[in-house]
């Protein structure tokens, strides 16, 4: 029976087949373990229905306007790509003229793969994922989609596991401190689907700062990004991870991101979302070890008809764990955002301190924000709080700013800067903050 997707609740699926999986395996000459994982994931993918608005996690996000005929054709790795295709700001050094390494991909092909020699000598691995499969197969086999994001997490997680096209692998050995920040970028330029994977593994006591950027070439035809990010922070290890998304307006993103933190480890996770036509991201933090902590900070700013949906989960799985989530979003025009957050506290996780807050600023009467906090607490000696607000810019501060000669549009921009300030100051790179500020300004001033 053939039923038009537009008339049913169930969205259409992309036109992909097992042959695409086999094609990737052959193209990359992949080892047996990976080929088997891909095939198993494909089987799972085929067995799962496309998520629809009748599923709770997708209730507010309807992606049926995606045209899979354009967005669903697989962008396979195709030799080496030219770094110059990517605007230089996305790969320029993060601190003055320095960074510890760079991995860049255009569509699914590698455009740069560099690592400071001193870091490589310490055993740090920072390369693209296909290269890592060839050169560090044991490590990738151990960590790839086995502990954080798993194929069974959802339809798009299974699709990703079956068909991931490219990725970044960062591995920091036990006790190694990486002084210079590492940097990577995914930059799709074609219509079609790319499936990027970020796999970060910090062994016990490791310490690193890592920044990833998502951006793409603006074009008429639609594109899709089906991503996964996995972060494993070992005992006493410390990771500062910033991911900034500035997709072009033709791109649909579906991604799963999950971090696990072991005893006394600390994760400082910041995301910025500016672009994309529709973005659906699951972000999950698991505090697995006693005394571990995680801070999740998010900034999103949607305009036009953009739709951004962030689904966050903070899992306290051990005693004395601390999580702190702050997501702040602004919405212009007819843009729409969804934030759904949950703090889960396991029965064993006594002395937990969990916090979540989502603040939204509506800058147009046609914009809409949904904010749904949640707590599921199974231990008794815990402190968990949450807050959610949706508000407009107050006239009083605007009058104050204008009374000093600042025109209304600029006064609004200052007020929005102020709103985002607490997240902005968690980004440790001045150049990145300035770029983010500039894209906020461009949206506000309608450039």
């Amino acid at each position, binding site marked *: 029976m053939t039923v038009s997707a537009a008339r049913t609740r169930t969205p259409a699926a992309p036109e992909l087949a097992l042959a695409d999986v086999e094609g990737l395996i052959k193209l990359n000459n992949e080892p047996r373990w990976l080929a088997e994982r891909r095939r198993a994931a494909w089987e799972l993918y085929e067995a799962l229905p496309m998520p629809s608005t009748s599923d709770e996690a997708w209730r507010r996000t309807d992606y049926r306007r995606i045209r899979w005929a354009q967005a669903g054709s697989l962008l396979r790795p195709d030799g080496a790509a030219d770094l110059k295709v990517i605007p230089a700001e996305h790969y320029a050094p993060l601190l003055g003229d320095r960074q510890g390494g760079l991995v860049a991909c255009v569509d699914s092909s590698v455009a740069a793969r560099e690592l400071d020699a001193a870091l490589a000598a310490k055993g740090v691995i920072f390369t693209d994922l296909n290269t890592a499969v060839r050169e560090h197969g044991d490590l990738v086999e151990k960590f790839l989609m086995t502990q954080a994001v798993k194929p069974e997490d959802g339809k798009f997680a299974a699709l990703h596991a079956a068909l991931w096209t490219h990725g970044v692998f960062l591995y920091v050995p036990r006790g190694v401190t990486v002084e210079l920040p590492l940097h990577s970028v995914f930059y799709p330029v074609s219509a079609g689907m790319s499936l990027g994977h970020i796999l970060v593994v910090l062994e016990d006591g490791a310490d690193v700062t890592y920044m990833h950027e998502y951006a793409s070439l603006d074009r008429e035809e639609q594109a899709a990004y089906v991503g996964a990010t996995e972060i494993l922070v070992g005992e006493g290890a410390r990771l500062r991870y910033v991911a900034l998304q500035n997709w072009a307006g033709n791109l649909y993103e579906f991604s799963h991101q999950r971090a696990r933190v072991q005893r006394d480890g600390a994760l400082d996770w910041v995301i910025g979302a500016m672009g994309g036509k529709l973005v659906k991201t699951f972000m999950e933090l698991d505090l697995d070890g006693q005394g571990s902590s995680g801070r999740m900070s998010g900034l999103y700013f949607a305009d036009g008809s953009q739709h951004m949906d962030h689904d966050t989960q903070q899992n306290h799985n051990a005693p004395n764990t601390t999580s702190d989530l702050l997501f702040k979003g602004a919405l212009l025009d007819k843009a729409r955002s969804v934030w759904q957050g949950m703090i889960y506290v396991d029965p064993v996780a006594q002395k937990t301190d969990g916090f979540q807050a989502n603040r939204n600023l509506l800058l147009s009467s046609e914009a809409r924000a949904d904010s749904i906090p949640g707590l599921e607490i199974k231990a008794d000696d815990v402190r968990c709080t949450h807050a959610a607000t949706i508000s407009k810019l107050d006239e009083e501060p605007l009058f*104050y700013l204008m009374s*000093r000669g600042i025109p209304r549009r600029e006064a609004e921009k200052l007020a929005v800067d102020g709103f985002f*300030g607490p997240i902005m100051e968690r980004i440790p790179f001045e150049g990145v903050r300035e770029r983010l500020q500039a894209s906020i300004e461009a949206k506000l001033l309608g450039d």
Partner: protein
Amino acid sequence: MVAALEIRNLHANVEGSPILKGVNLTIKQGETHALMGPNGSGKSTLANVLMGNPAYEVTGGQIIFDGVDILDLEPDVRSRLGLFLAFQYPVAIPGVTLANFLRSAINARRRDQNPDDKGISIPEFRRLLVDKMQYLEISQDFAGRYLNDGFSGGEKKRAEILQMAVLQPKIAVLDETDSGLDIDALRIVASGVNRLVGPSLGVLVITHYKRILDYIQPQHVHILMDGRIVESGGPELTDVLETSGYKPFFEKYGLVPTED
């Protein structure tokens, strides 16, 4: 030419109730005026209406600034013409530093003069700010703090005077700048104002109490009662208030004190 602020038969409502009922007052550059009145007489309404606060509705009259009727002008345009209001309750704007805010204000002025202006350079701005802060004896760490966020009452009022020093208005209205200040804070703020007073600055000090006028000495004093200026004179007018408060004025004009 000396600029002037001329308030002509000004009427204004707050939430539908008439508060200003025909105010007439002219302040020229180089003059210091005090406007005194009891609670509910319309002092803060006048200050807000002069600056163009959209929450207040002007129902009649004119405000002429430097020869231009400014009633239909937005607050930012009024500011760039040279009008300044030191707020009674400065608004906190977390996330925006005082320095960043002042630079935006200066750049708005420069772009108004020349749309191609690239803005004040960071070193030039820093010099200007440090210079004004030293002049007003304000600690330099102020510049990096979020605007009015967590400022004490005295710090807020000093920040207002700093803004006035940087923006160099022709006419400044100080709305109850003395409220909420202890005597030491008041002395510091008043001495800041006094440093700025001169032939190119006209000041309207709005106050309930005579206290601030011991530090900022006006040539002209006006009494506002029930939305009108009922008496104008020299500094001696404040002597009556010193001994008897506003009571004789209420009796003389047959008015009843409001509760707040």
